[in-house]
């Protein structure tokens, strides 16, 4: 089916002509998450800058569902002309390993630009009796399968982060998946689950005391939460975060991909935008497209490792 579509597309579209004057019409950015989420916020921040450079209308389309699969599938099966762009977090990578039977392969997409890398943070319910990561780890080791950690969905970064941590320290915990980070965080606040490897977007809830932050899986402490130690400080070599990236359908002409790369790079480095990324704790180091592809490949290897350990079960 897909092959037929591709062939049809090839008939109608002459790729050489496209690359020269990209973009010559409206561009759609697909965000496979709800409006108001982190990824969506980033995209809407970038949108006016991109619009300025390209002089074309840019539509942001939120397409949540099945992790981030629905939106990713949409972009993968769109005409490979660069007019449909995917901006997504981690799910697109982990689904590749977790859902091998889904009608979508990561290789149907071409990674173009990496906006940055977040870091996950262990947050616990406000009335949780322990505060230190060593203490919690020790307790979890003694009580296998009793620590209840929520996640925003199977294969989302909080899930993968929890599995990686559990693998590093050798504990078994109980994974409780939700649909989206808002409901999972709500249950942490209400004390129905013990905690969650949340993204740093929960900083404001930590400040208001609705949840407490235990440790952060970053190289350094978070600028907004200087009191929260890193896992490394506690002797756990665990650094992990979601990857915000820009992808297009794989057969998109390289010239078009280069233009998309350049446009996003320019937009992301507008001082105001860059500053937002930094205050959000995003590691927005400049990376080339090749480096981004390499990082994606490394992630896949790490995930395969978790599968081999039996911590992740592909469906």
């Amino acid at each position, binding site marked *: *089916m897909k092959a037929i579509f591709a062939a049809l597309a090839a008939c109608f579209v002459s790729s050489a002509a496209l690359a020269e004057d990209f973009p010559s019409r409206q561009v759609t950015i697909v*965000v496979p998450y*709800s*409006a*108001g989420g982190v990824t*969506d916020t980033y995209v809407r921040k970038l949108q006016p800058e991109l619009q300025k450079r390209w002089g074309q209308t840019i539509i942001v389309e*939120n397409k*949540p*569902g*099945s*992790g981030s*699969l*629905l939106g990713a599938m949409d972009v993968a099966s769109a005409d490979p002309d660069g007019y449909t762009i995917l901006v997504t977090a981690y799910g697109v990578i982990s*689904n590749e390993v*977790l*859902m091998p*039977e*889904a*009608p979508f392969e990561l290789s149907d997409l071409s990674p173009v630009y990496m906006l940055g890398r977040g870091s996950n943070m262990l947050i616990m319910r406000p009335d949780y009796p322990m505060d230190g990561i060593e203490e919690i780890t020790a307790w979890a080791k003694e009580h296998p399968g009793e620590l*209840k950690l929520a996640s925003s*969905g*199977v*294969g989302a970064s909080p899930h993968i982060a929890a599995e990686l941590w559990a693998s590093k320290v050798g504990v078994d915990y*109980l994974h*409780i*998946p*939700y*649909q*989206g980070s*808002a*409901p999972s965080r*709500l*249950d942490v*606040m*209400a004390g*129905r*689950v013990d905690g969650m490897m949340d993204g740093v977007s929960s900083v404001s809830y930590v400040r208001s005391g609705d949840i407490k932050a235990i440790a952060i899986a970053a190289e350094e402490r978070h600028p907004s939460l200087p009191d929260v130690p890193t896992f490394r400080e506690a002797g756990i070599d665990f650094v992990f975060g979601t990857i915000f990236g820009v992808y297009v359908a794989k057969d998109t002409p390289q010239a078009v991909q280069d233009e998309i790369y350049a446009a996003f790079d320019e937009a992301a480095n507008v001082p105001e935008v860059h500053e937002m990324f930094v205050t959000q704790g995003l590691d927005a180091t400049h990376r080339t497209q090749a480096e981004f592809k390499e990082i994606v490949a490394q992630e896949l290897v790490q995930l395969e490792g978790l599968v081999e350990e039996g911590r992740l*079960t592909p*469906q």
Partner: protein
Amino acid sequence: MDSILSNALMGLEVALMPTNLWFCFLGVFLGTILGVIPGIGVLVAISLLFPITFHIEPVAALVMLGGIYYGTTYGGSTSSILLNVPGTPSSAVACLDGYPMAQKGRAGTALFMTTVASFFGGTVGIIALMGFSPMIAASALKFGSAEYFGLMVLGLVAASTIASGSMFKGIAMVLIGILMGLVGSDVYTGTLRFTFGQMALFEGISIIALAMGIFGVSEVITSIRSVKRAGNADHDITFRAMLPTRAEMRASWMPMIRGSAIGSFFGALPGTGGLIASYMSYATEKRIGRAEEFGKGAIQGVTGPESANNAADQTAFIPTLTLGIPGSPTMAIILGVLIIHGIEPGPMVLVNQPDLFWGLVMSFWVGNLMLLVLNIPMVGLWVRLLKIPFHLMYPAILMFIVMGVLTTYNNVIQVWVLLLLGAFGYVLRYLGFQAAPLILGFVLGPMMEEHFRRTLMLSGGDFGAFFDSAISQVCLGSAVALVLYGLYVSFSGRARRGKAGEAVNEG
């Protein structure tokens, strides 16, 4: 109280923005037209016009959908009164005394008083919505998976026992709806279920194709014959003929107040809605007033239920917007639309998107005001619209349905899905099943599963967790009581409200 007032002001500001005002007008106007035309109910109206909202801002889109929603209810009573055919199923009650009034030459008054009663009911409903939503959203932390599950069970049981002809048939519809809702990938594991290798089913059955097929297509099939039999309206209405007498005004106040209270309650209760509220109000008025007048054109039989109906339309938004639980099939569609527009309904909406919530609520009020002002001079237009014979209209209605599905999904496979679901919907109707519980089950099914599984995981497999909190106990207790009541009714052989049973297709 203060914060409600300031929020209301902020909402009013949003609602009065020119674009929102325009979409509000468009919504109530189109809604009224579609409501007037027999064969198109709220669900079909929303599904038809939903693709238009794709390209506009979420707030404007919601404002417009809301307008279509209560606009249809306003319009629905027009054809009830003039033709004795409910324009939308939820205005079936308006036939009982509205049509006799029209036969006595008081059609104008009936239409005028319906509009006034609708506005009154709508206003009361909006006030209830404003007062209770923040309270419920604030106690959202009390709602865990077990509580959500209990509330959903109550909603589904209520939808299948209170409204439809046979309780077993209603429950069967709910269960089939749940199963249909589970088609696609499992939220916990991604396992593809009941897809039988069909690409079109990987994302699940699409709600628009389902609503259009089960309500739209099967409604058209049924109406081709039945509307022809009903004949056409032949009334000319002047403004003078619309004014009620002083006695009629006096007789209407109390029914309107009682109706609004009844409507607000049943609207907010998941699973029930406008139709049940309007029947309850009718029954109440009949008990209070002189029963022999009813059915022969008693004004109380028009104004009470109309207020109830419209109050329920507004309060139905309480569980939908604050907890993300749709209380009626129409709300289920609106919930689906919210999600497609990228808004996750739930307690966080009030916190994160207060402009959206309050803007929407205040737009309801603006829209109701527009309806009041619009409908009085436009009654003549509706009368003329009803003179168009249905056999000239239904090919266009079908075209809208098919094009609506096509433009929503951009994929012709969904038209085939529509065809299958349309056939299924008509067969269900023929076998005496109600489609409304099916839609509700369809939307709540995946949520119920999520909460069911999570409750068990959190409790370590202990079913007692479903009954732990007071909220769950009340919900599940009421659900059990409803089932027992339903059992009593279905085996005591008592005939159930005939007309209600037939008409509960939408609500």
